[in-house]
Structure formats: structure tokens, C-alpha cells
């Protein structure tokens, strides 16, 4: 453990004496705190050598990242406007700040009057603080002068000028840690605080109790401050901030005003909607055309099916009874079986037939369908094989899509576009009981419902979370499903596409207005700060994409495995046939689809795109395809999304939504079938 620290600090800090050699004291907890988008993560990465998200949308870094700085623990926290309990991020940040020994407060030099509120609150809490004034290069460009010495004097703590993008001023970080101290607290607070402190509550906790943090008050069984008391303290603090800014900031010219055309145009619907459409078109070209057609076609078929699965399956087939169907496409594009090989005691037993198979299967355009006789090889390597299917789908189908999608999301987040999109769409979302912020989880949903379900946390009230969660599970198709739908409908003409979109859109409107009427309470209004629009740094985007993709694979991989195991077990135990027969009246009479379409619904429970993909092999008419994909879209979310939904929304709500999607999917699908088929 100790050696690890030494080697790390040796590597990182050439030239500066390690802190640990001077002080052999017990490790301290250093916490980086700041408003959203002030560059905290840059400091964290530099100090710890580890990477975390640098996020532009307030509310996307909920998780906390911990690293080591010399001998000390270093924590990064979500961007917050103050220490409080208005949302999850604040609660998380609050608890880490309370337990921290040293606070490094990162402040945006361009937004002092916003950022210093948090600074003063940290000082009022009695924490040891150093202020890192970031974006100092921008000050010169915008002709603003800040008297840092005077600021330091007024705050009572050290202020360090930095520019995180090019690490300017980072040589002072070690001083910032060493020189952190308690600052000048508000005089009017001290007498009230003393009253609470007497009763053996730390000052930081005492202040938060006064400011109405119920959970802290409960912890010490003290009466909690009222909203009025909090307001009084906040107004006092706000006045102090304004007073300080007046004394230390000078603007040389009014020309410094940021006027950002793109940012402005993206707000007004007249220009903002075209911008949004162009954005969508670019995203579609990138994900829909490039990733899901070209890249996935290569990774899934060439690498996954023809290389990985073929070799694994034929290796297993050497030792176990197997039938192999060779399938090729005829002139009309339909699948035809060109030959069936039978190896009743494994391929190794019949070398001449094996060689014939080898030669024939290598021909271009030939697909192999392995049917293992025994249960275990079938379970692990068969059609729904736990090993074969999981690996192909996860690594060669889903991973490229997920990476492509995360690149887009990271790019949008870092550009500062998302808060503006939320602003533009606010009024439309108001109609269904949401505010513009809801656009974030819903947009994410088009990528991955599982991810989107987690992001509902950033919404203000339980009511909004419920509405958005329902919308996500009912109507939003994820990127994997969209890709399959697009492939199914390609060449079918514009009619089915219009039918599909209008049915789904109608369900969306009816569902959200009903929920808005039914659910009690009020939704929170939009209140969001708009960060500067900037071109994202590609290195940040890629690093963020990498860490998120790894995280996603870790989370989804397990459930994939379980899902494949479940369907595989159903297949070898015959449950799949039982299921097909059980719901065949529903499939054949009501939805007017072939009996085998029931498989799609089982698969759809595991992964949404599995469901739609299952329709590929059936000979369906255009309208049957349309009915099937409408039903599959409205049908339950995939198993990973389902589990995350239960975790986020609780068992009761989760199960209600899950079963309701069953009912809606079959009712709407059936109605459409009865009309158009």
C-alpha cells in the first residue's frame, strides 16, 4: 500500500518534494468542491493521475471519484451551487464535504458572483479552505481584472490563480493543500452558531442544521432550521458576495460581454428547431448509418458470427453430436438451406464429412446454423448460447453502438448545448407536467433505456421522475432496437414509417397527458444556468466515452448473461414451445402474426433488439412487420433497464409500469393489426 503511494508520487511529481515526506501525520481527506463546469475534474486528474468525467450539463456526474494525492485521500464531487439537499448530487457532495479535512474550492473567475456563494458557505461551515481561481486566461481576453490579494483578504483564505486547460498555476496546488485554513465567517452567524455548537455539534453540521438540512438535524436530534431561517442566512450571504465582487472586480470595457451566436440561436425555436434537426441528422448519419450499418455489420457478422462463433461452435462440434445447416441467400434475398450435415457422434468421428463441411462453409455468403443434440452444448453454444450469443451481442453488436452513442452524448454535454435545448423545449414539456430538463433522460433513452433510467435522478420531483420513467419504458425505442427497426422497414416505403411514428407518438401524448392528470402534486419549474457554448475537447470526449463504455459493459454484461441463460433454459426444457402455444391465440388471431412471433416477445424481455431481430427470419408482409415492430416497441424494456428501473423507482411502481407495457403493447398492436391487416 505504502509502496504504491511512493511510486505514484514519484512518477507524478518530478521536482517537487512529496508532501508525505514532510509530514508523517495520518492521511487527510482533501475534497474538490465547485459549481458545475468550473473544471474540478481537471484538477482532480492532475492531482491523482486518474481520470473522471468533465461534464457540462449540471447533473450528469452523480458518482463520486476518489483518488490519492501523496499520502492523502482526494475526492471529486458533483458540481453544486451550494451545500444543501435540493437534489441527489447536493446530498452526495454535502456528505463528503462534511467528512472532509481540507476543501479545495474551484471557482470560475468569470462567474464570481455565482461561485462565491458556495465559497462563503464553505467558509461559514468552518472548513479549512483554499480557493483555486480557474479560467484566469479568459479574464485577460475579456478585459476583466480581479484583485486576488484583496479577495484573499476579504475571504480570509488563500486564493490561487490557475488556468486548468493548460495547467497554469498547478505548481501551486501543493501550497493550496498545505495553506488551507478557516476563513472569515459571517459575524451575524457566529452567535447563533455558538448556541448550537455548545451542544457538541461540529460547526459545519450546525450551520447546515440552521439552513434547514433535515437529515443532518435528525442525526444530532436537533430541531431543524425553517425555510425562513435559511432564506435569511442565504440573503445575508448573497449580500456579502455582491459586496466582495464590487470591491475586487473591475471591468475595463463593456466589450467583454460574451455574445455567442450559436448559443443564442439554439434558444429561439425559429432557429433552434432547425439546429436541432441538423443535430439529429448528423447523429443519425453517425450512429444510424456509420456505426449501426457499416461498423456493426463488420463486427457482428465478420468478426462475431463468421470468426468467433464459427470457430467456437465447430470446435465444440468436434466432440459432441451436432447437425449443421448451411444457409445462403437466393436471388430474391430469402434464406435457403443448401445442405445439412449430420454428425451423430461429433465431427472428429467423420473426418471426410468434416472436411467437406469445412470447404463448403468457407464459401462467401454462407451462414452456418449449428444444432447441438445435447442439452449442455446447446445451452452454452447453441442458438441462444450463453457463451456464443452473449459475446457476439455484447462485444460485436452492442459495444460499437454504445461507444458511438456515448461519443455523441459526451460531445453534446461538453458543448453546452443540452441546457439550451432544455430551455427551448421547456414550454412543450410543461404541457405534460415536465420541465425542459426532462429532455436529457428522454434523449438518452434513444441511446439506451438503462442509462436513461439512471439519469431520471436529475429531475426535480418524484412526480416528474415517474412520468419520464413511464415514457421511457413505454414508447422510447433504444438505439439497438431503432437500428433493427430501421433495417426491417427499409424498402417498405414511406407508409409504414408514417404509420409507425404516428401510432407511437399518439401513445406518447395520451400516456404523458394521462399521467400528468392522474399523478398528484406539482412539477418543478425550469431553473437552469446556461454554460458557455464551446467546442468540446476531443480528448475529454474520448476519455469520458471510454470510462462510460467500460462501466456500461460491467453493468450490462451480467444481465445479458442471465437473460441468455434464461432463454436457453426455456429452449432446452421445452418451455419456449409451451409459451408459444400458450399465447398463440394472441399472436395469430389478435395480432395476425405467425405463431413463432411469440419468441420475439420472450427475447424482447431480455433485450429489446433481440425481439425485433427475431422478426428478421420470418416471412412477414410489410403490414405484419409494422404491427410487429409497433408491438415490440411498446413492449417491456430489456432486463437491464427493468432491474435499474426497480432500483430507481421501487418495486411497486416498477412492476406497475412493466405490466402496463404488456397490456398496452398488445392492445395497441392488436388494434392496428385489426385495422390494417
Amino acid at each position, binding site marked *: 500500500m505504502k509502496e504504491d503511494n511512493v511510486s505514484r508520487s514519484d512518477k507524478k511529481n518530478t521536482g517537487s518534494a512529496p508532501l508525505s515526506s514532510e509530514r508523517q501525520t495520518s492521511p487527510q481527506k482533501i475534497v474538490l468542491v465547485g459549481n458545475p463546469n468550473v473544471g474540478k475534474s481537471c484538477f482532480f486528474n492532475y492531482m491523482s493521475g486518474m481520470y473522471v468525467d468533465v461534464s457540462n450539463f449540471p447533473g450528469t456526474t452523480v458518482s463520486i471519484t476518489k483518488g490519492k494525492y501523496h499520502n492523502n485521500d482526494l475526492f471529486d464531487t458533483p458540481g453544486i451551487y451550494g451545500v444543501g439537499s435540493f437534489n441527489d448530487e447536493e446530498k452526495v457532495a454535502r456528505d463528503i464535504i462534511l467528512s472532509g479535512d481540507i476543501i479545495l474550492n474551484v471557482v470560475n473567475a468569470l462567474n464570481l458572483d*455565482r461561485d462565491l456563494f458556495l465559497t462563503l458557505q464553505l467558509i461559514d461551515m468552518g472548513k479549512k479552505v483554499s480557493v483555486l481561481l480557474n479560467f484566469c486566461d479568459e479574464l485577460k481576453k475579456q478585459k476583466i481584472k480581479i484583485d486576488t490579494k484583496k479577495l484573499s483578504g476579504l475571504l480570509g483564505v488563500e486564493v490561487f490563480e490557475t488556468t486548468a486547460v493548460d495547467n497554469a498555476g498547478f505548481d501551486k496546488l501543493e501550497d493550496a493543500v498545505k495553506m488551507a485554513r478557516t476563513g472569515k465567517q459571517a459575524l451575524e452567524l457566529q452567535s447563533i452558531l455558538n448556541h448550537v455548537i455548545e451542544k457538541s455539534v461540529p460547526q459545519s453540521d450546525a450551520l447546515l442544521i440552521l439552513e434547514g438540512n433535515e437529515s443532518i438535524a435528525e442525526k444530532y436530534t436537533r430541531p431543524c432550521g425553517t425555510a425562513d431561517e435559511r432564506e435569511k442566512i442565504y440573503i445575508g450571504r448573497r449580500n456579502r*458576495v455582491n459586496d466582495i465582487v464590487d470591491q475586487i472586480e473591475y471591468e475595463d470595457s463593456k466589450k467583454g*460581454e460574451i455574445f455567442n451566436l450559436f448559443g443564442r440561436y439554439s434558444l429561439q425555436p425559429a432557429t433552434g428547431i432547425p439546429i436541432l434537426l441538423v443535430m439529429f441528422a448528423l447523429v443519425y448519419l453517425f450512429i444510424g448509418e456509420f456505426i449501426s450499418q457499416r461498423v456493426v455489420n463488420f463486427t457482428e457478422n465478420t468478426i462475431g458470427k463468421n470468426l468467433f462463433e464459427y470457430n467456437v461452435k465447430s470446435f465444440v462440434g468436434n466432440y459432441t453430436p451436432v447437425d449443421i445447416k448451411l444457409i445462403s441467400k437466393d436471388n430474391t434475398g430469402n434464406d435457403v438451406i443448401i445442405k445439412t450435415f449430420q454428425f451423430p457422434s461429433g465431427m472428429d468421428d467423420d473426418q471426410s464429412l468434416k472436411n467437406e463441411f469445412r470447404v463448403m462453409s468457407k464459401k462467401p455468403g454462407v451462414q452456418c446454423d449449428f444444432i447441438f443434440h445435447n442439452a449442455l452444448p446447446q445451452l452454452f453454444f447453441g442458438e441462444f448460447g450463453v457463451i456464443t450469443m452473449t459475446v457476439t451481442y455484447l462485444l460485436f453488436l452492442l459495444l460499437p453502438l454504445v461507444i458511438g452513442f456515448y461519443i455523441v452524448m459526451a460531445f453534446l454535454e461538453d458543448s453546452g448545448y443540452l441546457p439550451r435545448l432544455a430551455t427551448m423545449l421547456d*414550454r412543450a414539456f*410543461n404541457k405534460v407536467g415536465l420541465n425542459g430538463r426532462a429532455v436529457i433522460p428522454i434523449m438518452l433513452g434513444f441511446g439506451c433505456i438503462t442509462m436513461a433510467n439512471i439519469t431520471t435522478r436529475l429531475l426535480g420531483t418524484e412526480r416528474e421522475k415517474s412520468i419520464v420513467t413511464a415514457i421511457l419504458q413505454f414508447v422510447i425505442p433504444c438505439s439497438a432496437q431503432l437500428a433493427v427497426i430501421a433495417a426491417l422497414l427499409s424498402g417498405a416505403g414511406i407508409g409504414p414509417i408514417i404509420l409507425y411514428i404516428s401510432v407511437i407518438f399518439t401513445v406518447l401524448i395520451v400516456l404523458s397527458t394521462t399521467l400528468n392528470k392522474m399523478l398528484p402534486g406539482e412539477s418543478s419549474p425550469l*431553473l437552469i444556468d446556461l454554460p458557455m457554448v464551446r467546442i468540446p475537447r476531443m480528448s475529454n470526449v474520448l476519455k469520458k466515452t471510454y470510462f462510460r463504455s467500460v462501466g456500461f459493459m460491467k453493468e450490462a454484461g451480467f444481465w445479458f448473461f442471465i437473460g441468455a441463460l434464461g432463454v436457453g433454459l426455456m429452449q432446452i426444457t421445452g418451455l419456449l414451445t409451451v409459451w408459444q402455444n400458450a399465447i398463440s391465440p394472441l399472436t395469430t388471431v389478435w395480432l395476425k402474426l405467425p405463431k413463432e412471433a411469440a419468441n420475439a416477445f420472450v427475447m424482447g424481455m431480455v433485450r429489446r433488439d433481440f425481439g425485433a431481430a427475431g422478426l428478421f427470419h420470418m416471412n412477414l408482409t410489410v403490414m405484419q412487420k409494422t404491427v410487429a415492430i409497433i408491438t415490440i416497441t411498446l413492449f417491456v424494456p430489456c432486463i437491464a433497464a427493468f432491474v435499474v428501473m426497480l432500483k430507481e423507482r421501487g418495486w411497486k411502481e416498477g412492476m406497475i409500469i412493466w405490466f402496463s407495457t404488456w397490456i398496452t403493447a398488445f392492445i395497441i398492436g392488436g388494434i392496428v393489426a385489426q385495422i390494417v391487416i
Partner: protein
Amino acid sequence: MPNSTLDKSRKGNFITVVKLPGGEIKSQLIRLGISEGDTLKCIERLPGGTIVVRKNRQEIALGFDLAKKIHVTLSEKHS
């Protein structure tokens, strides 16, 4: 100067905040830098009444329902 509410402001107006709505949202507004007596500039008013204001170099968007509850005085010029 006539009393009004924030949702009535037009692009380019200067706004002096007279009274904020109470409760949690007030604390959030104060933290972001909007408190009673402050002067803001309305830099955008979207159809439907979503308002974007600027205070110093910070741009903040407020939903119509919130803007409606903020009492202000409006003027064409900076006071």
C-alpha cells in the same frame, strides 16, 4: 416604473427584482445570484414565456411558471 412579473419582460428589458416566490425555489434563486433588488437583463423571451436573463456574465433560464411568480419592475434602459 410599473410593477410587473418577469414573464412579461421582453428581450432587451432591464429588470429589477422586487419579490421572489417563497420556499425552496427562493433559496435556489438566491444561490444562483438572483435576489430581491438585483438588476438583470432579459436576453431572450421564447414563445410561451420561457425567459432567459443575464446577470453579469451568467445566463440563466427560467420557466414560464416560475417567471410568473417573480415580481419585477421593467425598464428599457439600465437604471
